[in-house]
């Protein structure tokens, strides 16, 4: 089932065109990887899906991005609703300088009036269980989140995100600051989460894309060169440029 469809999506930063005619179909409950050399527009594309690019004043887009059949590029889109539904995990783990507990309930406190302490406790436990941190952290909930290890921080950021009950998780190089073991464990977590979420992961690490994703898109200079099943992209790319990239001929 298609969750997100982009139709002839173009995007400009001022006069610089960062996305060129991107057409893709992102399936629900699958992991879609976006790969490509640095600066090709991967983060830009990801940030279209939750309209984080709107923070940039000189930004201009055209085309359509349908999420559940609604064009989110429409100027009437309620960004609060959109961003609750389409959440983002950033490259650098970035918990707030608050306690572990306060980090997780941040979204809920903002969205739900008069929520009780018990309900919040429940959300914290459930979210931490989902990211496999509960057993480690259940006795340390009031400690500053900034004291956690990088991997724990990144998991906490994922927990903070799923506490607001999104459908789509956008992950922008979520493992780039982690060591290989931690990366493997976060990838494992992504596989567990995919039954409940639509996951899009940007990565410059081709092995990672090959390991975790069902579908892969390859981008180059703002164009989506090839998009399809991961095993097909990696074993039988149709485009010469994709082949060059996955065999390591670009940086």
């Amino acid at each position: 089932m298609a969750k997100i469809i982009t139709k002839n999506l173009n995007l400009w930063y001022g006069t610089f065109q960062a996305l060129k005619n991107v057409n893709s179909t992102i399936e629900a409950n699958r992991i879609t990887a976006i790969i490509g050399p640095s600066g090709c527009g991967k983060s830009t594309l990801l940030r279209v899906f939750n309209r984080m690019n709107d923070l940039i004043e000189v930004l201009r887009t055209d085309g359509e991005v349908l999420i559940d059949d609604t064009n989110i590029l429409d100027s009437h889109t309620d960004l609060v609703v959109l961003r609750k539904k389409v959440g983002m995990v950033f490259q650098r783990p970035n918990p707030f300088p608050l306690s572990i507990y306060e980090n997780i309930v941040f979204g809920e406190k903002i969205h739900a009036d008069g929520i009780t302490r018990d309900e919040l406790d429940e959300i914290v436990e459930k979210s931490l269980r989902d990211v496999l941190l509960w057993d480690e952290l259940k006795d340390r909930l009031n400690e500053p989140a900034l004291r956690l290890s990088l991997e724990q921080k990144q998991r906490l950021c994922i927990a903070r995100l799923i506490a607001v009950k999104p459908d789509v998780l956008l992950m922008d190089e979520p493992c780039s600051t982690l060591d290989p073991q931690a990366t493997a464990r976060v990838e494992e977590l992504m596989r567990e989460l995919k039954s409940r979420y639509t996951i899009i992961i940007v990565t410059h690490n081709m092995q990672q894309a090959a390991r975790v994703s069902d579908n892969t898109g390859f981008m180059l200079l703002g164009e989506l060169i090839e998009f399809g099943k991961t095993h097909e992209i990696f074993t039988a790319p149709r485009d010469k440029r994709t082949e060059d990239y996955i065999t390591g001929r670009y940086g």
Partner: protein
Amino acid sequence: MKNPYRTQNIAFFFLFLATLLIVVPVGLIIVIIIQKGLPAINWQFLSDIPRQGMRAGGIFPAIVGTVYLVTGAIILALPIGLLAAIYLSEYSKDNLLNRLIKLAIVNLAGVPSVVYGLFGLALFVVFFKFGASILSGSLTLGIMILPVIITTSREALESVPQSFREVSLSLGASKWQTIRHIVLPNAIPGILTGTILGLGRAAGETAPILFTVAAFYLPRLPNSIFDQAMALPYHLYVISTQVPNVAEKIRYGTAFVLLALVLIMNLVAIIIRYKFRKRKKW
């Protein structure tokens, strides 16, 4: 051959000298004021009204006046200054007009205080007919410290990492919720620094209160905000230059109280700031 350590040592020496040049006079002033002023301090000096043409008695009305004026100035300047800073750092677009506004605010901090005094006289005392009163004085002092508060608060807000804002927005918080729950709490230490600076300036200046509130001699406490009041800096000026034969002890005692008052107010703000800062590590 060039010896990099020698130039480095010479540079260090001059940097150290410059620091010394600043620290020594300040230290000396403090030491002298304490040495000459402390003997005058006793309960009567702090709690009594001035007597015998201000040559005896205490300085209680001046202490109260200064506390009222500083409090009034902060009550006015902090909310307005903070709101302006939030607007400038979070909402205003980066265009020529807003850059000019920011530049103007920074420069207003350098306007001589007597100009603020004349402004307060014209606007509050004469035009709004508040007369020479605590209200006029507080408003004048408040306007004088606004630029400092706006500038430091703006810098504090702008130093909160952009990534915090992004995360908050990406979790579906509105812009205002992001400011309210993420940006402001993390900017409090810096905002308090601005408040401290403003406080010290409001407590110490004579010129802005000269025409707007300060009473030469008023041996009672003010009754309302429309009353005149004595104030420590002006009282100090009066007993040092206008009244003959005031004991040195009393003059330095007054200076000591003014200094101590400012230090205590600063200390409170510093403690609050320290409490907040302990949380912040990024």
